[in-house]
């Protein structure tokens, strides 16, 4: 019962923060709310016994992305532009939400031992990781050893994103090239 109460209040808090963030137009408050959202989500993950995910959510979602959003905020106006609600996207979003809500009823119950995800490779990881890898934290052994390819891919995604950011706004070659381009353009025009 207390577990249900904790879950329900955390989910209600998440929904409240999300609605507040949608309704507010001051971007500073929205950034702060998104940080709070991540923190509450991290608490929810702890309740679900997913401490590694909670750790990541707290560090990345509540920590560094709030700082990055604040850094971005200092480049843009403090207020969101007023806009009216357009009907077609609102309809599409509601429809997708309803479809997802219907799909949720098809999911196996939370913690159901017969759920397909618990019967594929998970037993092998849980039973075999002690002998094969010997790392007490199974999450680490799955992340770094069983699914090393996945993690390598994730690292490459982070790498690619960083290189893209550097190329676009890093300023390594930006200023000279743009000047050159302009110059060429003006010569062509002339």
């Amino acid at each position, binding site marked *: 019962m207390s577990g249900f109460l904790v879950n329900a209040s955390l989910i209600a808090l998440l929904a409240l923060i999300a609605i507040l963030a949608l309704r507010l137009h001051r971007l500073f408050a929205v950034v702060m709310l998104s940080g709070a959202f991540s923190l509450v989500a991290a608490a929810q993950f702890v309740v679900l016994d997913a401490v590694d995910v909670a750790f990541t959510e707290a560090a*990345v979602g509540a920590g560094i992305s709030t700082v990055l959003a604040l850094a971005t905020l200092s480049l843009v106006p403090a207020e969101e532009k007023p806009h009216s609600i357009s009907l077609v996207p609102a309809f599409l979003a509601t429809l997708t939400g309803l479809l997802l809500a219907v799909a949720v009823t098809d999911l196996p119950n939370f913690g159901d031992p017969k759920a397909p995800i618990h019967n594929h490779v998970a037993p092998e990881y849980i039973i075999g990781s002690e002998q094969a890898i010997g*790392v007490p934290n199974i*999450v680490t*052994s799955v992340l770094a050893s069983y699914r090393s390819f996945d993690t390598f891919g994730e690292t490459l995604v982070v790498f690619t994103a960083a290189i893209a950011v550097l190329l676009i706004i*890093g300023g390594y070659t930006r200023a000279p090239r743009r000047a050159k381009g302009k110059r060429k353009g003006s010569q062509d025009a002339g």
Partner: protein
Amino acid sequence: MQDDVVIRVVAKVMIPAVMLFALYVQFHGDYGPGGGFQAGVIFASAFVLNAVVFGLNKGRHVWPAHYNLMGICGGVLIYGFTGVAGMAFGENFLSFNVLADDPIAGQHLGILLVEFGVGLTVAAVMVMLFFTFAGRLSHNRLLSKSDAHERRLAPKSSPSKEVTK
């Protein structure tokens, strides 16, 4: 924020603690929650805190710009070469069993190296993102005068070279 003595002193106390905690999360990831991604973010947040409190120039002094690419590429290379090392010993890519004398020690070594690569890349990426965004901000508003002067001159100097060609 450099004028606020409370923030300055607290930051000075906190920054080493944050970095130490990041190292703990990095190398204790085998035994408790944590790992490369989280440790990288926490390690980067120490440098971000330093830059926020003591100013961007001092932050850049501690983390020069060439660390960015070294860290970002170095982490991916450490990860990749750990995988290739498995191939060199006659196993598949990213198979750690053969890295040491017995498979368990090999797995431990492989996981340690791989997580270190992830942590290095993530830390460098996060610091780079903050400095890049904050650098654009200071480019517009906060840049010190000499710096701004140099930057304003930089794009203008290259067309003049073109003319002489």
